[in-house]
């Protein structure tokens, strides 16, 4: 397995730089059921484009543009949302 493909395969929403866009590939399996459902309800389903907006101080929430709305997520959640980069 080349280094490149590992990076791509394991890229999460938390890795995406501010103002960049990414497309959701999947939600990892270790989400609590209600947490996964809420993210899905907010439109974080595979294929969805997400834009990273601002981040709060002290490593807090980051704001994401998701289906026309702005949603704040903690890093521990963003780390479990697998994405691919969008040019």
């Amino acid at each position, binding site marked *: 397995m080349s280094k490149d493909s590992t990076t791509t395969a394991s890229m999460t929403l938390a890795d995406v730089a501010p103002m960049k866009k990414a497309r959701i590939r999947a939600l990892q399996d270790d989400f609590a059921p209600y947490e996964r459902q809420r993210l*899905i*309800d907010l439109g974080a389903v595979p294929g969805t484009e997400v834009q990273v907006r*601002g981040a709060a101080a002290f490593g807090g929430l980051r704001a994401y543009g998701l289906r026309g*709305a702005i949603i704040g997520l903690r890093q521990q959640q963003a780390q479990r949302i697998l994405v691919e980069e969008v040019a």
Partner: protein
Amino acid sequence: MSHCPPSACQSCPAHQAAEAAGFGIKEGDWDYLVALAGNPNTGKSTVFNALTGLRQHTGNWPGKTVSRAEGLFRQDGQRFKLVDLPGAYSLLGVSRDEGVTADFLEHGNADVALVVLDATVLERNLAFLLQVLNRMPRCVVALNLMDEARARGLSIDARGLSRDLGVPVVPIAARRGEGLKSLKEAVLEVASGRLECHPLQIAGEEEIAQRYHEEASRLAQKHVQAVGKDQRRWQDRLDYWLTHPATGFPLMALIMAGVLWLTIEGANVPSGMLAELLIDKLHPWLQQAFAALGSPAWLTGVVVDGAYLTLAWVVSVMLPPMAIFFPLFTLLEDFGYLPRVAFNLDPLFQRSGAHGKQALTMAMGYGCNAAGVIATRIIESPRERLIAILTNNFALCNGRWPTQILIASVFLGGLVAPAYAGLTATAAVFGVAGLGVLLTFISSWVLSRTLLKGEAAAFSLELPPFRPPNVLRTLYTSLIDRTLFVLWRAMVFAAPAGIVIWLIANVGIEGQSLAAWAVHGLDPVGTLVGLNGVILLAYVIAIPANEIVIPTVLMLTVQMTGHAVSGYAGSGVLFETGDAGVLLPLLHAGGWTTLTAVCLMLFSLCHNPCSTTLYTIYKETGSVKWTTWAAVMPTVLGFMLCGLLALGWRLTV
């Protein structure tokens, strides 16, 4: 169940009434039942208020800690019962709120579902609507916030959308009352069956959520077009600064301090005028009138010196700061600033093992802790919800702001040159409120490592678009809903408290009044923690409502010292810091020092919640144990803080 054809039983009116009754909807003076549903932050309650006006009723869903409101409206002689369902992101969701909404749409036997969509976040909102259409074919869509969509240069083809969805779509701007008539007409058309709906159905079981979102995305792309200039770009810039790591916190502090400063500076003059009128003029006049009518001394005492004087203190001390603070707070709330506060504060809550939405319930607590405790319903995880409930008391409620403001103005403002009095008082109150925030974090942190161990649950926080509030309407509703409501509550508790105070001050054992017995008994403890017996007794009498602490303190001091409060003709400026004022000489006569004032401000922050809040905590948790904790924890902390401060003060000053 919803897929079965309706049996004769199900369509029988008797069955419907029984079914609806299961949801606490009483059969009665209405022809059609309308369920109001929508995503959170879509202006659903604005639509509800605009349709029903004052004909509404609020309460809980039967057996559930989920709030609900219902009201009535008319159209063409038909009467509609409108039930406001909890805001929901989805009908597949697992939250309490979403469960109630899904359940009612499926089994509530509503004649029509009225679904409110935010035209500026149409894509996400449409996904919810598609789910409703799958369960409830008779739908009317209210495309709300069209004024905002226009300001963003968006053009939305409501007709095309209606054609594709198979149900009526009515563009409205509920804040301005636009489109409400057409909306009511559409509801009647669908309810009466004159208009048949053929709602778009999304089939399948696999990946159903994804299909809803894909279809919503397709519809939004097809019917929403950017045609004009986006006049809301400033919102993005404002959001950037308000949530920026470097500027978010300073701006938050500045806004909070600004609100406090306006309240303190603004409340001074009207408070003085009210005190002059009610205490200097009306009180002696009432005494004379009672005497002239031949009232016995005890009756004059109970009614005029007890009930009336306490009421007069409550009105003159409470009304002006509340009438400034509440509308300002409501403006910030309606504008959409509070979710930004939650966004900024989340890392601190996260490290305290608490839920980020605790910032929102804390903010609500600044209005009223009972309301803050009810607001913790937005926190799904039971552990974090309990933390939010137990620590809500550290958010200074409106009943305590006037205490802080008054004591800071009179004592601490008097320590500096008059020009800086307002700023000094603001800084002091800001400091106490800030200490409250700090104590919230510390106590949350301790709770989440001792009594309420566990990991911080993940959560998502929507930052809804800013909504320039309708200032006049906000002023009006916050005056009616909050200021007058709270003032009324204070007055209801103040009058009996005044009678109690007069009685204990004038009924005696062995030549000493009951109040004197209590005050002297409490004095040693009070002095130890920098307070005094009068203050401690006042906190016992004022358990029903924090609003009456200061009036009770003043009444007791008057009774204990015999210091006259009336007859300071023309000089009754309540917040005046010099000897010309009413309060400072009175409190000095009661033996107060700067230490007493500072300790009172601390104790006002850290003591048991009022009985209304305690009862609310009991109802929300169903637990005597947690209610007791909620009362004991802050009180013990308050005694410790005040005791330490008094010790340090006496050793150094």
